[in-house]
């Protein structure tokens, strides 16, 4: 008995966090990520519910728990976590720290678990088959259907939602894919969230676009602050892309630099770091070999879709887009000390022009489905990460997109 208690005590000191971010809660996510890093080696991230012992929902400020996430999502994920487990919600940057502390306390005080395995989830196959009611059910789950694949063979088709709780995935985004083997045959981007969940509190601006939107509203914003935000936004995108590509070291480096930029590090500190990271990323021939050729989006096609920002400037494949981020982050890092006021011109955020008819991320999402069709699952993840649409920008849109 004594041994058991001792083991439990050791186990309770380790926290593997499954973070679910609601659209509009980017600032909270960043606070949580920084908080987890500050708490040291006993804290880490879980890639799936099974790997986690703590569920943390980052909700937007002013939202109820879960906010713009589909209502049932936190509850469903919670059921998938094995015992002993803890959950918390942070609905604002200042709540991130207390929420993390409460997770640690709950795990330390927890009663552990009684024998018998968790009911567990439906797995990820529990999607309704597109064929509807005539699909055969096994244990309440539909069997895969058949369909012609790209080589004209009849193979199983599996309908699977990608998101909303995947590591390094845009907050709240769900892409429904039809898979044959691990090849995506068809992809559809779901409207961001259920009708009940929209709209969020009106005054919240998309985090990454904030300086430019504020300036456009007539507030005085310094150029340095805008550079800082742009630099951090690109480093955030880069960190995710490298995370999906499976290069944890540089991905972590990008996130640290991002946090340093947001914390107000001067250009003299920030710039060398970003430069070193850019060189490291550019020099990796393996990375180039792995990402080259995925999701080509030539300039003409990008313009036609209304894509702007780095994705348009890259005018190429996922690798070109990946390289734009450290390059542009470096340029922004050089200007973070500027105290001049942001000039009164057209607002251009990290993902493109903000005064157009539609937010830049909408165009990025529209570009997704044709690029995903025919891609392998791993490639599809890289393509999504290389465009990195920001769901925060979509919250203000009137009619959800089909």
């Amino acid at each position: 008995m004594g041994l058991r208690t001792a083991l439990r005590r050791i186990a309770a000191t380790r926290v593997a966090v499954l973070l679910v971010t609601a659209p509009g809660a980017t600032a909270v996510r960043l606070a949580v990520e920084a908080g987890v890093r500050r708490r040291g080696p006993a804290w880490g991230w879980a890639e799936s519910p099974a790997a986690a012992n703590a569920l943390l929902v980052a909700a937007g400020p002013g939202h109820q728990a879960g906010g713009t996430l589909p209502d049932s999502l936190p509850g469903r994920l919670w059921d998938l976590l094995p015992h002993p487990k803890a959950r918390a919600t942070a609905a604002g940057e200042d709540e991130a720290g207390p929420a993390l502390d409460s997770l640690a306390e709950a795990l330390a005080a927890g009663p552990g678990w009684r024998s018998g395995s968790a009911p567990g989830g439906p797995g990820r196959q529990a999607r309704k088959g597109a064929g509807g009611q005539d699909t055969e059910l096994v244990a309440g789950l539909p069997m895969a259907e058949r369909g012609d694949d790209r080589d004209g063979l009849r193979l199983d088709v599996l309908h699977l939602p990608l998101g909303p709780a995947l590591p390094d995935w845009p907050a709240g985004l769900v892409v429904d894919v039809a898979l044959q083997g691990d090849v995506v045959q068809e992809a559809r981007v779901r409207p961001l969230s259920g009708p009940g969940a929209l709209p969020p509190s009106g005054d919240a601006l998309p985090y990454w676009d904030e300086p430019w939107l504020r300036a456009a509203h007539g507030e005085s914003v310094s150029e340095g602050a805008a550079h800082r935000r742009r630099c951090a936004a690109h480093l955030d995108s880069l960190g995710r892309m490298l995370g999906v590509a499976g290069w944890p070291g540089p991905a972590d480096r990008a996130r640290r630099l991002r946090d340093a930029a947001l914390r107000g590090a001067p250009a003299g500190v920030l710039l060398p770091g970003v430069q070193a990271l850019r060189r490291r990323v550019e020099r990796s021939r393996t990375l180039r070999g792995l990402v080259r050729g995925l999701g080509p989006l030539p300039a003409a096609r990008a313009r036609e879709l209304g894509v702007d920002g780095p994705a348009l400037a890259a005018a190429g494949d996922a690798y070109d887009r990946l390289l734009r981020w450290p390059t542009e982050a470096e340029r922004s890092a050089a200007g973070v000390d500027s105290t001049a006021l942001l000039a009164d011109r057209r607002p251009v955020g990290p993902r493109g022009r903000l005064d157009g008819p539609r937010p830049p991320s909408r165009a990025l999402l529209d570009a997704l489905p044709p690029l995903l069709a025919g891609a392998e699952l791993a490639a599809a993840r890289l393509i999504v990460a290389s465009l990195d649409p920001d769901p925060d920008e979509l919250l203000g849109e009137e009619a959800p997109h089909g």
Partner: protein
Amino acid sequence: MAETAPLWAVVVLPLALVVLAGVAAGADAVLSAAHGGAGAWRRAADPWREAVRLLVQQPRRTRAADRWLGRIGIGLVPVAAVLAAAVVPWGLRPVTDPAVGVVWFNAMEALAWAAVWLAGWGPNSAFSLVGGYRFLAQGLAYELPHMLALTTAALGAESLRVGAVVAAQRGLWFVVWMPVAFAVHLLSAAALAFWGPFAHPLGRDVAGGAAAEWSGPDRLVLLAGRWLLLAAGAAFAVPLFLGGGHGPLLPAWLWTVVKTAAVLAALLGLRHLVPTVRMDRYMEVAWLVLVPLTLLQALVVAVVVLGRR
């Protein structure tokens, strides 16, 4: 012919392999935290604490899962590692030294293919299944060059017995005149352990792949098992290419430990240098570059061996 180790080595071998794997995992944790500031060395105990966490965690099941099939797969991972390590001489004496030791090692690593595939199949979950399938593709990609690399070492010694391969390196280590085969074996050690640059079957992009749905002791056995496989793969490079226990001054067993640690260190470095490779891209490199290179290496070795007669 080197004689085999005493019977108690059968008990010690799995423990030694666990310690080696744990130290390697600890070193990896330290290395990962190294750019995070002071106190990184304290992370050396992280893998053990994580093991405790998983040990007391609830095992979890998914709907319509083939749990026991999955668990057989998971259990096979450490079993394959220990069985593969049985032919590795610690010092100059292995636990067992069969006449076909090199083939035995190869067969045990192929056992890991079945293991990971079953672990991915078991939970009835798409990401997990994708992870399992990825390992089969990975097997196809890395195994052919690896087999040729192993063959090259056996060719140089004119024997499939690991003891004979070590004995043949008394003068000159095989790594000196078989550098390609050695490099391919290093890559393969990471690949057969689905670890580091070859961790795609457990990839972050599919939420942990074959490991995505496993929790508690199941997860512990799977994740610890891959470190055991890595340790076994690294340890096998020593008798094959690095002269086994041969070396000046130090006793043979210590040389084995030092050399194994060096190989593991090289692998840890590799992990931090290179992103995770996808098999749809790596296959081309493996078959169009590595296979011809290893064939050429085997040819050179064969000519040298014939010339010596």
